[in-house]
């Protein structure tokens, strides 16, 4: 369970550019929920993820993880239970290391990074079995540097790496936005499979309304720091792309786009 309580967030406080993003923002994600988040640019989607993960601090309010107050916990400590995938595929992998090294590094998350050998050759086959179902040909490239892979391959790696170890939450920040339609589809399917298999509580920000409706069991739409649509379960299934698009157009017109 993740909960944001009475979050306030101002950007550039005390200047002429002061902008209030969140004013008493409340949001609660139950265990096992897979929430799709849609909304226009600047509506606060990514800021919300950043506040949850601790990349930026809220001005006031409380963040609870499984009932525990994590408001003052540093980002890296929070991420022990959270996996996060970014829009930019290169943010989730180390380009100058091989696939093997990247996976070995990720597999050790949560354990101590001591003076033991990092790469265990015996794990090679396990990694290959893990990569084979992706059909991206990565299983034959274990010794290739990740920097030489395509964006889609890297994003699939990033997804695998962020979910290799036992975590509870998965934060997806437009993770298919930089990919071509086919690769995006592969990555979306991989996402769903992982979420289901590992029973992860997930929040996915996306600009693709079809993905937002097709995947997950809850959808929210954000606008100017507020949640203006929140449907889950059956209600969400009955929701149609046109309805969401209609609402989206309304808020966009309001903004003058």
């Amino acid at each position, binding site marked *: 369970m993740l909960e944001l309580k009475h979050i306030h967030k101002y950007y550039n406080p005390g200047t002429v550019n002061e902008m209030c993003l969140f004013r008493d923002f409340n949001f609660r994600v139950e265990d096992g929920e897979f929430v799709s988040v849609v909304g226009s640019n600047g509506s606060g989607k990514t800021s919300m993820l950043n506040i949850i993960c601790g990349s930026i601090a809220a001005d006031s309010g409380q963040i609870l993880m499984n009932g525990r107050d994590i408001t003052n916990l*540093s*980002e*890296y*400590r929070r*991420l*022990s239970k959270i*996996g*996060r995938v*970014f829009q930019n595929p*290169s*943010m*989730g*992998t*180390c*380009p*100058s*290391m091989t696939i093997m*090294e990247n996976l*070995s*590094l*990720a597999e*050790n*998350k*949560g354990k*101590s*990074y*001591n*003076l*033991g*050998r*990092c*790469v265990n050759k015996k794990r090679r086959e396990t990694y290959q079995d893990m990569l084979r179902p992706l059909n991206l040909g990565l299983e034959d490239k274990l010794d290739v540097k990740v920097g030489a892979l395509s964006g889609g391959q890297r994003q699939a790696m990033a997804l695998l*790496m*962020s979910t290799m170890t036992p975590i509870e939450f998965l934060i997806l920040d437009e993770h298919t936005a930089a990919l071509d339609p086919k690769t995006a589809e592969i990555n979306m399917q991989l996402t769903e499979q992982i979420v289901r298999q590992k029973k992860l509580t997930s929040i996915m920000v996306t600009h693709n309304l079809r993905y937002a409706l097709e995947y997950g069991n809850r959808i929210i739409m954000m606008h100017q720091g507020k949640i203006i649509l929140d449907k889950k379960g059956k209600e969400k299934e009955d929701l149609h792309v046109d309805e969401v698009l209609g609402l989206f157009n309304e808020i966009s017109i309001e903004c003058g786009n």
Partner: protein
Amino acid sequence: MVLFISVLEQGMIYAIMALGVYITYKILDFPDLTVDGSFPMGAAITAVMISRGINPLLTLPVCFLAGAAVGMLTGLIHVKLKVRDLLSGIIMMTALYTVNLRIAGRANLPIYNKTTIFDNDIVNGMPGGIADYRAILIIFAITLVSKYLLDWYLGTKSGMLLRAVGDNDRIITSLSVDKGLVKIVGLAIANGLVALSGCIFAQQQRYFDVSMGTGTVVIGLASVIIGTSLFKKITVLRVTSSVVIGSVLYKGCVALAISLGFESTDLKMITAALFLAILVLGMERKRRVKVDA
């Protein structure tokens, strides 16, 4: 032959320092100027210990640890006080100038006729045939051990984090590790190696001078860039080995320039000109590769 051996000796001594610079510059992507202070610090500590008659073998671990402590301080200034990387190094470099003077007690401390790692009963007892090569053999051994230890470390979990932090520091946070801590560890190891290099340098040259550190970082950077760009294509060669060879080549270039008739007062100018040439040539290579692709 004498010139060749002397180039090899100097190059191998500076190679240990270059390995440290390799960690900061190439792995951590941190332009660390602390080096200009930690190199003479190693020399200062060594000169004082040797002149007091302390076992010269002890100078090696002591200098490494002292260098590591200094590197850690640079890291703390950068990470905890959030001072920019370049400035953290400059602050430490400046402070270390005074520290080095305090350690040595004066600006110049010769250690002639004292027991050093190059001049002691065991070494002097070696058969006469290899007498001329005693120093180079000892330097070779220390440099190679340092190199292999570094290679080993970079393959450990902790070392892998170090490689990752310069590559993409977000991933360290994602792995639920404090990236600041990783940087501090990296700076500590790097400056430990630099001080160790200063320690051996002082014993080979038999003196400490407070200004001997000036330009160390340039020598280190030049060695790293020569090594990594010349041997980029040779994959069997580890990067650390390339750096060691780069350091020797660099010293060779300087020796060549001097033998061409330059004075030793021109040394820093030669250093700067060489460094510039290496940087420009290194860039040229990169561009050409891109066009081919």
